């Protein structure tokens, strides 16, 4: 046993330790054993590689956008190319990275293990999800290669149906297909959580990670089909002119926005809720305390999912909706802040008087708490009717949702990837380097997006590739920050790949964490458990873990 100061990390003796020879990675060999696998852990790995690929494509577009905005004049790309850049950035990041990020990778890997099950309820459907995702991703790339699309990720009618001459239908098909990947993932999770829990795993003994995924899955199952039909209608309107969104034929373009945002607002909760699940696990483990107000955190996930369905119109305040409905939706928008704040406060109380240590996952989690809070509170600004009219369609809104999605979700994703990396691969990542990456990411992120709040407040509109010269200084800061941020994201890819071969052997439970996944070998066996466990304690019960560890030592020694 190697002792660290100020760290809970306990690694086995590296001189003798080995990654278990028999595990889910070594169980079968060959490409086909991966491409035809039913194992949720292998599918999670497939997803991890594919979403990382799309993340860097989407990131490259972000880099080009920031590069163009370095100077006030449109000197790098033409205006319609710029439109394509931010559209492809949005489409790829939202549908191919953020929506599947945590659920399809960490959720896929961990939910069955956390519940004490051998696999998800429908392994074949799980694999089908991945193939649908890949088909959707390939089609998006096809649209990109053929010349891209410039509707913005929102496909707003009548722009998308009548005025643009780009590959709208190809991209729409891609999103339709990727949407079904998301539906099947959500369906699989809900059935698994309802029907596959091991003996003794009551609803209120489930880790909060599972609760968060349950809430997100409800949104995936109920929201995504509405996006699917909205997309189908756009494609039909564009190809055969059905008139449903065409005012000249009596159709209503706003109907599209209602249908689109009915999915796409809950979609931001699909993106953030699983991240919140990660944060609950990480905060508890690195402060050695049961999550404060477990029940409140669990129910706040469900409350966010529920309220999330009744706020979509706040995306349309300036689009000509009735003032009275805007008033109601403004109020409902404020209500979503309540369960979100419940989570933040409960995590803060979990930290209070905890034995906090600052490993990489915890650094990312702190990043999440701070940045998500800023992102959430600026969301309240935008939910207020008067403020929204001033701030909407400016960089303020860009900064707001990047604080939630990038500062929140991406931080949570990286936190989770680092936290469970030893479980997934059996090896540790280099701690010092990863701490540096977490700090670089945090600094780069703030440098990129804090100036955008000011830019937006001063009135710089989004989606333009030129701006008045007085905004340049803030834009230069933002672009500089984006460079730092890019380095922060490249670092983990490099050192995580390195760690696959050279990382220290992690052992079963390097973090001394309580979840069922930490009680089995790393990487796990294909069947997860040799014998189905019986859950005889609450989640986050560190005394149980201590007792179990002490017991093990006496029996072995």
């Amino acid at each position, binding site marked *: 046993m190697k002792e660290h100061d100020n760290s809970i990390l306990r690694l086995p003796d590296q001189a003798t330790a080995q990654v278990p020879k028999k595990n889910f990675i070594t169980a079968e060999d060959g490409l086909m054993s991966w491409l035809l696998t039913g194992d949720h852990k292998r599918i999670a790995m497939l997803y991890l590689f594919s979403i990382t690929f799309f993340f860097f494509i989407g990131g490259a577009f972000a880099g080009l956008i920031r590069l163009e905005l370095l100077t006030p004049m449109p000197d790098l790309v033409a205006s319609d190319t710029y439109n394509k850049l931010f559209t492809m950035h949005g489409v790829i990041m939202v549908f191919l990275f953020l929506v599947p990020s945590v659920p399809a990778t960490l959720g896929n890997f961990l939910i*069955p293990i956390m519940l004490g*099950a*051998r*696999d*998800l*309820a*429908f*392994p074949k*459907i799980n694999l089908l999800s991945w193939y649908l995702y890949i088909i959707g991703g390939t089609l998006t790339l096809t649209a990109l290669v053929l010349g891209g699309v410039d509707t913005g990720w929102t496909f707003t009618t009548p722009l998308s149906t009548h005025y643009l001459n780009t590959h709208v239908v190809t991209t729409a098909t891609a999103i339709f297909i990727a949407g079904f990947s998301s*539906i099947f993932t959500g*369906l*699989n999770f*809900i*059935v*698994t959580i*309802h*029907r*596959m829990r091991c003996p003794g795993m009551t609803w209120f003994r489930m880790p909060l990670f599972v609760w968060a995924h349950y809430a997100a899955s409800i949104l995936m*199952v*109920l*929201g*995504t*089909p*509405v996006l*699917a*039909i*909205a997309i189908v*209608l756009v494609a*039909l309107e564009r190809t*055969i*002119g*059905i*008139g*449903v969104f065409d005012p000249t*034929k*009596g*159709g*209503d373009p706003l*109907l599209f926005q*209602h*249908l689109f945002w009915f999915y796409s607002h809950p979609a931001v909760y699909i993106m953030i809720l699983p991240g919140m699940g990660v944060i609950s696990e990480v905060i508890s483990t690195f402060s050695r305390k049961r999550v404060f107000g477990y029940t409140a955190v669990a129910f706040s996930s469900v409350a966010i999912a529920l309220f999330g369905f009744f706020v979509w119109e706040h995306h349309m305040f300036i689009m000509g909706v009735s003032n009275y409905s805007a008033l109601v939706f403004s109020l409902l928008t404020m209500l979503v802040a309540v369960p979100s704040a419940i989570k933040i406060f409960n995590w803060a109380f979990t930290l209070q008087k905890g034995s906090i240590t600052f490993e990489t996952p915890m650094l990312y989690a702190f990043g999440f708490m701070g940045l998500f809070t800023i992102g959430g509170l600026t969301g309240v600004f935008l939910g207020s009717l008067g403020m929204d009219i001033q701030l909407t369609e400016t960089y303020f809104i860009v900064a707001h949702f990047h604080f939630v999605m990038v500062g929140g979700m991406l931080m949570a994703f990286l936190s989770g990837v680092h936290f469970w990396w030893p479980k997934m691969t059996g090896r540790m990542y280099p701690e010092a380097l990863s701490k540096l990456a977490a700090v670089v990411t945090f600094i780069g992120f703030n440098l990129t997006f804090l100036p955008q709040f000011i830019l937006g407040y001063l009135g710089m509109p989004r989606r333009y590739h030129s701006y008045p010269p007085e905004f340049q200084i803030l834009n230069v800061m933002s672009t500089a920050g984006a460079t730092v941020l890019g380095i922060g994201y490249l670092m983990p890819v490099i050192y995580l790949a390195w760690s696959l071969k050279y990382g220290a052997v992690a052992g079963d439970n390097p973090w001394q964490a309580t979840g069922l996944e930490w009680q089995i070998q790393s990487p796990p066996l294909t*069947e997860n458990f040799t014998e*189905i466990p019986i859950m005889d304690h609450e989640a986050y019960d560190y005394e149980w873990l201590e007792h179990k560890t002490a017991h093990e030592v006496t029996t072995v020694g």
Partner: protein
Amino acid sequence: MDSATVNPQAEHDSAKHHHVSLPQHRHHFETEEQQREAGSFGMWLFLLTEIMFFGGMFFAYLLYRNWYYDAFVAASNTLNVKMGAANTAILITSGFFMALGVWAAEVRKKNLLVLFLILTTVFGCAFLGVKYFEYKEKFELHHVPGNSFDVSQFINPPLNAQGNATRPPLPPDMAQKTQLFFFLYFAMTGMHALHMIIGIVLLFWLMGRAQRGEFTEGYVAPIENFGLYWHFVDIVWIFLFPLLYLINLHPLAH
């Protein structure tokens, strides 16, 4: 493990693995019952997503019917209620045979199950056949949304034997809106028909498997879950029929 025959070894294994006896049992499920429950729960959830999918179109219907009520009434009156009603009966009959099919699988009567699946398919195809003639009529009347759409029938309604208009004439502006009705008609019944076609393909697949006796040895989950899907498709039609065909049958009888 693949054999259902009882021998000491199988006895031993089934005790260890909680009564694994069906060849269709998948090993990540602890019990067959868990597998069956998971399957049917998954199917219900999938149907929920289907409701949301159709929900988008029902929402559009609600909106435009309120805005353009007169156009919706006039357009609805050109639909063939007799064919629609016959189709409703045909579809319910098909659903009835499907329900009998589930029963036959449960009481393990192979030939009966195959027969009921065939009858389900026959009535399903009959529904699509009637639908074909309805669609054909719409093509002939130029009631298909698009460039060839013709509103003259709604501005100058056809006369009956007494020389009276069969329905109130619509102002040209409102008459244009019948196109929205017909779009929704084609989108909703078309999406419904697409679900029926997928269902019929699945029925042929299930028939083959049923013929091999796969569902009459105690493993009925696919038949049961397909039954849920088929009944769902029926129910969608039960909503579509009054919403599209029966908006206001006698607009002149006030």
